[in-house]
C-alpha cells in the first residue's frame, strides 16, 4: 500500500502533467487496485510474463476499448438523453457532433471515432457555399485538436469524391494538426482519380490522410458498415471492439524448440491463453460493468451485438528471425523470401485459429485478427508484422514483402512506408505507390515523408518541431531530424507529454 500511495502522490505532484492527465492516471491506478477478472493459472502466468498482453486496459473493463457510434442517429433523430433536437443547419449539425463526442467513451476516455464526416455533413450542405463550408470545417478542426487532444481520434471520409471531403483535405493540409487523424476510404470505382491525387498532395504536405482499401474492408464487414479508428483499427460501425488483447510472437518463438514445435504446440497454446484472457475481459464488460445500459444503446447509436474482440499480434519480425536462427537459416525477415514466407505462414496459422475459436458476446461469434502497432514501452519488439524501423527496404520491396499478410487481418493492419522528401516535387508517385499497394492486397496505405514536420512514430502523429523544442530546452540531442532508427528514442522523449498525445500508447502512469 505504501508503494501505491507513493505512486498516487507522484502523479498528483507531477509538474509535467496537466490536471486532466493527472485525473486520468489517478483513475487508472484506482481501477487497478481492484482484483483482475478471474483467470486460470496458465493464462495468468502468460499475462504476467507478457507473452500475452491486455494492453494494460485496466482491471475492471467498464467501457469497450473502442466505440464507433453511428452518428447518423443523433443527426437524424436528435437525442432525448442529451436533450438535443434534430439539427437543421450545418452549424447545428457540427454543434451536435461536438457535443456528442464528449459522451463517447473509449479506452483513453476520448472518442477514437468521430464519424464518416462527409457522409454525415453532406445533407446539411445544400445551401452552404464552398467558402462557408471551408470556414466552418476550419473552426471545427481547430476545436477538435484543442479540446480532444488525442492523436488516436480518427475521422473518416470517402469513398465518394464530395465537397465536404475536399474541404476537410484542404483544411487538414493547411492546419497540419496532430488531431484528428484522418483516413480516406478509397475505391477506384466510387472515388475517382481526383480525390486520390488530392490525398497524395496532402500526404506530401503533412503525412495525412491514410488511404484505406475500401473494397477489401467493405467485404469483411456488413451493410451497416465499418469505421477506421485509432491506429488503423477497422471495426463494425454502430459497435466497436470490447477489448484488444495481443500475443507477443517473439516471446512465443523464444519458447519453441523448433519451427515444427512452434506451429504444432507453442503457438496454439498461447493463442488459446489469449482467447481465454479476451473472454474473461469481455465477460466482465457485458456481465458486470453495466455499460450497455447506456443511452448510447437505448437510443440506437450503438448495438450491443456489434462489438468485436480484437485479437492482436506483434513482433512478427523477431519471431521469424528467432525461428530462422533455431533452424540454422540466415535469411532475415523483410529481405529474404524464405523468411518472409515463414511470416506469411504464421499469419495464416493464427487466422485459422481465430476462425475456429468461438467467443461469447462477440460480433459474429469470432474475434477479428489485428496487426497491433505497439505500446510506448515495447522494446525490441517490432509493431505488428512490420519490418524493424530503420532497416526497411525501398517502399516497393517493402509492400511486396508484407502484402501477403494483409488478407488475414480484418481488424486492421498497417505498414508505414518511409519516402524521402523528394516526393514533395512528385506527389504523383505516392498515388502510384498506393495503387500498387492496393493491387497487391494492402488494406491500408500510410506514408511517412521523411523531414515532414508531422511524422508517425508507431502509427500516431507527432510533430517534430515539438520534439525539437523540447530537446532545445533540455540542451540535448538538438537538431535531430533523423528518422526511422530513432523512432524508439522519440517515443521516449514524448514521455514528457506534449499537449496532444497518443493516449493509447501510455496506458498507465509511468508506462
Amino acid at each position: 500500500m505504501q508503494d501505491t500511495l507513493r505512486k498516487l502522490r507522484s502523479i498528483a505532484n507531477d509538474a509535467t502533467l496537466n490536471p486532466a492527465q493527472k485525473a486520468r492516471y489517478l483513475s487508472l491506478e484506482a481501477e487497478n487496485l481492484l482484483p483482475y477478472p478471474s483467470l486460470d493459472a496458465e493464462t495468468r502466468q502468460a499475462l504476467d510474463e507478457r507473452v500475452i498482453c491486455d494492453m494494460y486496459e485496466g482491471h475492471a473493463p467498464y467501457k469497450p476499448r473502442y466505440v464507433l457510434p453511428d452518428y447518423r442517429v443523433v443527426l437524424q433523430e436528435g437525442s432525448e438523453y442529451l436533450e438535443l433536437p434534430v439539427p437543421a443547419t450545418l452549424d447545428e449539425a457540427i454543434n451536435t457532433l461536438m457535443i456528442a463526442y464528449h459522451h463517447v467513451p473509449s479506452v483513453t476516455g476520448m472518442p477514437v471515432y468521430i464519424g464518416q464526416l462527409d457522409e454525415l455533413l453532406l445533407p446539411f450542405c445544400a445551401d452552404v457555399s464552398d467558402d462557408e463550408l471551408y470556414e466552418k470545417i476550419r473552426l471545427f478542426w481547430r476545436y477538435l485538436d484543442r479540446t480532444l487532444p488525442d492523436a488516436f481520434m480518427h475521422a473518416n471520409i470517402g469513398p465518394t469524391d464530395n465537397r465536404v471531403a475536399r474541404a476537410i483535405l484542404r483544411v487538414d493540409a493547411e492546419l497540419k494538426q496532430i488531431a484528428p487523424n484522418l483516413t480516406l476510404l478509397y475505391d477506384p470505382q466510387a472515388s475517382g482519380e481526383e480525390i486520390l491525387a488530392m490525398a497524395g498532395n496532402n500526404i506530401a504536405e503533412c503525412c495525412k490522410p491514410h488511404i484505406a482499401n475500401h473494397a477489401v474492408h467493405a467485404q469483411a464487414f456488413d451493410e451497416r458498415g465499418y469505421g477506421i479508428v485509432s491506429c488503423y483499427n477497422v471495426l463494425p460501425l454502430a459497435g466497436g471492439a470490447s477489448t484488444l488483447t495481443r500475443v507477443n510472437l517473439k516471446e512465443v518463438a523464444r519458447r519453441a524448440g523448433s519451427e515444427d514445435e512452434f506451429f504444432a504446440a507453442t503457438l496454439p497454446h498461447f493463442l488459446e491463453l489469449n482467447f481465454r484472457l479476451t473472454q474473461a475481459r469481455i465477460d466482465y464488460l457485458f456481465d458486470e460493468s453495466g455499460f450497455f445500459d447506456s443511452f448510447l444503446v437505448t437510443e440506437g447509436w450503438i448495438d450491443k451485438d456489434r462489438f468485436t474482440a480484437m485479437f492482436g499480434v506483434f513482433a512478427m519480425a523477431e519471431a521469424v528471425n528467432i525461428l530462422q536462427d533455431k533452424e540454422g537459416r540466415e535469411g532475415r525477415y523483410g529481405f529474404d523470401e524464405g523468411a518472409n514466407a515463414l511470416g506469411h505462414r504464421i499469419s495464416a496459422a493464427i487466422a485459422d485459429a481465430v476462425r475456429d475459436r468461438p467467443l461469447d458476446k462477440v460480433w459474429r461469434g469470432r474475434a477479428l485478427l489485428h496487426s497491433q502497432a505497439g505500446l510506448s514501452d515495447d522494446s525490441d519488439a517490432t509493431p505488428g508484422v512490420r519490418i524493424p524501423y530503420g532497416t526497411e527496404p525501398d517502399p516497393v520491396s517493402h509492400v511486396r514483402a508484407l502484402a501477403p499478410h494483409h488478407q488475414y487481418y480484418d481488424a486492421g493492419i498497417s505498414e508505414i512506408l518511409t519516402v524521402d522528401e523528394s516526393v514533395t516535387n512528385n506527389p504523383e508517385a505516392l498515388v502510384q505507390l498506393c495503387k500498387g499497394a492496393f493491387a497487391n492486397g494492402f488494406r491500408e496505405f500510410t506514408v511517412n515523408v521523411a523531414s515532414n514536420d508531422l511524422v508517425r512514430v508507431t502509427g500516431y502523429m507527432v510533430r517534430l518541431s515539438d520534439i525539437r523544442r523540447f530537446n532545445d530546452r533540455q540542451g540535448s540531442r538538438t537538431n535531430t531530424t533523423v528518422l526511422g532508427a530513432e523512432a524508439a528514442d522519440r517515443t521516449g522523449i514524448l514521455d514528457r507529454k506534449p499537449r496532444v498525445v497518443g493516449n493509447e500508447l501510455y496506458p498507465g502512469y509511468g508506462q
Partner: protein
Amino acid sequence: MNSIRATVSKILTYSIVDGPGNRLVIFLQGCNFDCAACHNPHTIGECTHCGDCIPACHADALSLVDGRIAFDPLACDQCDDCLEVCPIDANPMVREYNVGEILALAREHRPFLTGVTVSGGEPTRQLRFVTTLFEAIKSDEALEGLDCFIDSNGNLGASGWESVLPVTDGVMLDIKSFDDALHRELTGKGNLKSLQSARLLHDAGKLYELRYLLVPGKTDHDAELEGLIQFVRGLGGDVRVRLNAFQHHGVRPNAREWQPMSKAGVGRAAARLRAAGIRNVVEPAVYV
C-alpha cells in the same frame, strides 16, 4: 527483339526522382560526356576487361573468364571498392539485359509504376535498344498506360531523336552550360548539339523538363543565368525548368574541391528565373 542487348549499370524498380510518379529506371552504362560534376562517374566508362578490379574485391565476386570480367552478384556485398580502383570510370558489375528481361521486370512491378525511364550514363548511346524497348512496352497489353521517358545530355543528332520520339513520351534534358567554352571545360564536349536537341524536343512537345546544374562560381553567375533565361524564353511556351544543386555525393576528387551549392543559392537563382517570367521552376527538395 531479344537479340538486342544493353549494358546496364543498375536497375531501380522504385524511383521518385526520374520523371513523373514512380518509375522503373534503367541506367545504361557509358557516356559521351566526361563531366567533372558527375555524381555517378562509374557509369561513364566501358569496361576493357583489364582485371585491375579483381584484387580489390574482398568478396571474390570478380574474376576473369576467357579474358572477360565475370561478376557474381550473389557473392557481391555492394562495397563498391571495385569502382574506386577502376582506372577508366567503368563498372565491372554491369549486366547485359535484353528487352524481354526488362519487360518481365516491368510486368512484375506494373501496379507500382507510372512509367519507365532510361537514364545513364547516356542512354541515347544505346538508342536501338531504347527504341526497341519502348516499342515493345507500347505494344504490350500488360504494360498499357506506362509512359516512356529518356534522361539525356542531349548529345544526339536530329535523326537519332526522330527514330525514338514516336515511342517516347518525354525527355528530361540537361544543359550543363550556355557558354560553349565553359561547357567544354565541364563536360569535354561543346553544347551545340544539346541546345539543338532541347529546341527539337520542345517543338515536338516531348521536352518534359529542362535541367540545369548550379555549381557555385561556375554555372551560377549572371551571364549563365541570363543565358538560361534567354534560352527558355526562346523556346517559348511553358517549359518546366529544374534547378539542380551541385553536391559532393559521389563525385570524383577534382570536383570535391568545388563548393557545394546551397539551398539559398538555388533559391536566388530560382527567384531570378521567376522574375524573368519563367513560371515553372522546380527546386530540389533534398540537399545531399
